[in-house]
C-alpha cells in the first residue's frame, strides 16, 4: 500500500494566480476559473485520479459516470476550500456564513477546564476549523508533521500568532511528546489528524468503507492514555459560501494501565472515529482529500 509521502501538492504559481483574482475581482470569479483548473487536475494528476476513482467506485459503490463526476466535484470542492482559506487570511470573513451549533460541546469542556483531544482528518477544511477554535477560550495545540508543505506551515503560523493556538511539530527527537504531555497536563487541547501516518510509525488496521486501511496508532494511543475528553471535529462546506462545524459530544475513554487494556481502548476509539468519519463522508463524499491509495489491498 502506498503511504502518504509527507508532502502536500500545490504550486506557488497557482496560488499566486488565485490571489491575484481574489484581490482584483471576487471569490465568485475565482470559483469560476477554478472550474477549469479542476479539469486540469483530472487530466494531469493521475495518481490522485486513480485513488479517488477507487474511493468512489470501489468503496462508495458509485457507477462509472457518477465516480467520474464525483472526482470533478471533489477537485472543485478542494479548490474552493483552498480559495476560501486565502480569502479568510485576507480578512474577507464576511463572504461566508457559518453554523457553529456544535461548538457547545467544546465550549462546555472548556468551561469545565478539562482540556481534551480533538481528532480530525483530511476531510473538509482542517484549517478553517481553526476559525471555530478562535471563537473559544481554550488553548489549542495543533500537532502536525514537520514534513508538511512550507506554505501550510506558513498559513498555520498565522493561526499560531493568535495566542490561543500553538503548533507542535512532530520531530525525530520526540520532543513533541513532552509538549503534548505538558499541554494536556495544563488542561489545554491537542488538535491532531487521525488519517495519515509516516512510514515506519506504528499503525493499526481497521475496516474503513468495508476494506482494511491503516491508521496512525499514536493518535488513538494518546486518546486512550490520557484521561481527557476526546472529540471528532470537521469543518464541512455545506453550501457555496457556508460552512458547518461538526463536533461530536466529548467522550472519556477509560483504560487500565496495562498495555492490553490500552490497546483495547485504542481500538474502541478508532472504531468510533471511523464510524463518525464514514458518516460524514457518506453525506459529503466530495470532501475526501487524501489523494493517495488509502487502503491495504491492491490498487
Amino acid at each position: 500500500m502506498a503511504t502518504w509521502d509527507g508532502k502536500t501538492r500545490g504550486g506557488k504559481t497557482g496560488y499566486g494566480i488565485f490571489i491575484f483574482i481574489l484581490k482584483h475581482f471576487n471569490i465568485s470569479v475565482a470559483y469560476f476559473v477554478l472550474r477549469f483548473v479542476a479539469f486540469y487536475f483530472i487530466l494531469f494528476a493521475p495518481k490522485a485520479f486513480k485513488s479517488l476513482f477507487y474511493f468512489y467506485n470501489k468503496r462508495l459503490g458509485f457507477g462509472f459516470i457518477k465516480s467520474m463526476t464525483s472526482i470533478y466535484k471533489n477537485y472543485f470542492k478542494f479548490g474552493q476550500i483552498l480559495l476560501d482559506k486565502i480569502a479568510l487570511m485576507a480578512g474577507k470573513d464576511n463572504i461566508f456564513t457559518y453554523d457553529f451549533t456544535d461548538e457547545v460541546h467544546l465550549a462546555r469542556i472548556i468551561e469545565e477546564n478539562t482540556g481534551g483531544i480533538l481528532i480530525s482528518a483530511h476531510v473538509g477544511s482542517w484549517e478553517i476549523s481553526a476559525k471555530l477554535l478562535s471563537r473559544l477560550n481554550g488553548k489549542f495545540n495543533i500537532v502536525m508533521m514537520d514534513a508538511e508543505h512550507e506554505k501550510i506551515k506558513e498559513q498555520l503560523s498565522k493561526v499560531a500568532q493568535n495566542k490561543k493556538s500553538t503548533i507542535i511539530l512532530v520531530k525525530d527527537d520526540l520532543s513533541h511528546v513532552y509538549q503534548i504531555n505538558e499541554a494536556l497536563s495544563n488542561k489545554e487541547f491537542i488538535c491532531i489528524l487521525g488519517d495519515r501516518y509516516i512510514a515506519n510509525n506504528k499503525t493499526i488496521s481497521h475496516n474503513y468503507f468495508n476494506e482494511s486501511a491503516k491508521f496512525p496508532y499514536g493518535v488513538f494511543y494518546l486518546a486512550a492514555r490520557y484521561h481527557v475528553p476526546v472529540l471528532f471535529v470537521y469543518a464541512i462546506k455545506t453550501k457555496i459560501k457556508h460552512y458547518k462545524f461538526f463536533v461530536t459530544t466529548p467522550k472519556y475513554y477509560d483504560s487500565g494501565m496495562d498495555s492490553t487494556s490500552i490497546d483495547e481502548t485504542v481500538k474502541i476509539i478508532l472504531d468510533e472515529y471511523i464510524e463518525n468519519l464514514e458518516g460524514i463522508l457518506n453525506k459529503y463524499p466530495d470532501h475526501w482529500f487524501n489523494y493517495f491509495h488509502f487502503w491495504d489491498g491492491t490498487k
Partner: protein
Amino acid sequence: MTREEIIHQINILFVDEFEIDETNIGLSSNLLDVLKIDSLDLVDLVVIIEKKFGFKIQAEDMAAVKTVEDFYSFVIDRVDQQKQTGGLSI
C-alpha cells in the same frame, strides 16, 4: 526518598516497563537508545514518572536530558524541589 532510592525506582521502571537488562543501563548512554523506545513508549515513560514521583514534566526541562544520568539528575532535582515546596511541583 534518597538519591539512591530514586535511581533504584527508575531502574525498576526501566526493567519492568521497557524490559531492559539492568546491567545494560550505562550512565552516559543515550536515554532513548538504552530504552529502545519510540514516541508511544516515551508517552508511557512520562506518564508513569509523573504519577510515581508526583511532579509535572515540562517540555523545556527535557531539552537538556539526553543520557541516563541526565534523566536520573532531572528526576532527583524535581523530587528535591517538591520536598522544598511541600507538595506537587508544576
